[in-house]
């Protein structure tokens, strides 16, 4: 009975065990550290944004270097100060904090054993719990951040792959439309006797009617998209429309218009307009 009372008295709060309060405080600290440093990671990489995510920043920088090198673009280099900050934070987060946590934990256990034997320990009893809380906050924050990152990253990679697919589809449609535009341009200048429009986008077979895609040597469908003749205006403008078979997340497909203006006597003009 006396022992029970003694245990209850040693609690910081009568409603909860000390361990529960410790875990609660550590989790709260880790949450605050995570929430108030998260923008340092999620915003653009710069020397100011190293923050508390050095491992993720290092990973991101490495991936960025790889992409830059692959694309042949200029490498985005970090300053020496940023690199040293990153290294210091990696040492704190992944070396000092775990070691400090384990040492403080062991030390507390030894203290308890000493107390159980009736021996008195040295001074500074607050130091070990404080170290345990600080190291626990750092480790807890790392756990929260890395769990969230592990959930987000696959989605991010999927988005990146899909973005590449869409970009490729767009480039293919524009390339096909450019080829089609050049064919239409050639048709415009070719004499009627040679199967052209004779400075016109009208059909050489059916006089008075607009030329068809087939007559201009433009395929109506390729592996990259479907192409239609949208408009022929006064023999000075031809508008082609191309739609990719790829369906975007909004439900529509990448769609472009390609304008051909032969421009006699002014120079010819080609214009690409994005519709979707």
């Amino acid at each position, binding site marked *: 009975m006396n022992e029970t009372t003694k245990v209850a008295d040693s609690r910081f709060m009568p409603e*909860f065990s000390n361990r529960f309060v410790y875990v609660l405080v550590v989790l709260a600290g880790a*949450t605050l550290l995570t929430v108030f440093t998260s923008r340092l990671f999620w915003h653009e990489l710069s020397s100011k944004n190293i923050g508390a995510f050095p491992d993720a920043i290092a990973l991101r920088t490495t991936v960025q270097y790889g992409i830059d090198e692959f694309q042949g673009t200029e490498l985005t280099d970090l300053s020496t100060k940023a690199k040293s900050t990153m290294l210091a934070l990696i040492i704190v987060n992944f070396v000092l904090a775990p070691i400090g946590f384990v040492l403080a934990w062991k030390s507390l256990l030894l203290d308890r054993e000493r107390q159980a034997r009736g021996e008195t320990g040295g001074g500074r009893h607050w130091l070990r719990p404080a170290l345990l809380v600080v190291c626990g906050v750092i480790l807890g924050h790392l756990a*929260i951040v890395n769990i969230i990152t592990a959930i987000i990253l696959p989605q991010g990679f999927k988005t990146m792959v899909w973005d590449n697919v869409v970009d490729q589809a767009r480039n293919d449609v524009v390339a096909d439309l450019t080829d089609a535009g050049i064919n239409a341009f050639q048709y415009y200048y070719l004499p009627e006797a040679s199967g052209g429009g004779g400075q016109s986008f009208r059909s050489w077979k059916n006089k008075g009617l607009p030329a068809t895609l087939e007559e201009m040597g433009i395929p109506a469908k390729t592996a990259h998209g479907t192409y239609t003749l949208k408009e022929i205006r006064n023999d000075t403008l031809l508008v082609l429309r191309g739609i990719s078979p790829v369906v975007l997340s909004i439900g529509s497909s990448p769609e472009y218009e390609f304008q051909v203006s032969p421009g006699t006597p002014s120079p010819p003009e080609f214009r690409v307009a994005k519709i979707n």
Partner: protein
Amino acid sequence: MKRIGEIKNVSVDWRWVGVGTCFFIVMHLLPTYILFELRVITTLFGAIFSVWVFAGMAFISFFIGWKSKGVTIIEAGLAAFIYGIVLMLAINQEWGVGPVFPLVIKPLGWFFAVVVIATVSAWFGELVQSIKAQGKIEDLE
């Protein structure tokens, strides 16, 4: 037996204020942050997000009132006030998403609402605790 209407000497148990704030942070800020990072919460802005904030705070305040051995109504209000500052800073300064409540309710109204909701919820928690302690919970069921 403790009765809520008979509080004479109002004293604040600062341990419960601290632990209550930690409860708010762990049980509300952490899920909010995770939902925000997982891009779930961006679709919840507006009335649903406000319900998420206020209902969450009411639930935690109720828990504080119900779980504590003493009367912790003021403690819940103070913890909610501190958490209100934390949440506002987190949303306005860090996440920068322009939440609805500072725009609609304005900061003064926000803190007033937070404290009132927390206090009333904690009072309900104390009420349930008191009824349970008096063995009247069976009568209610």
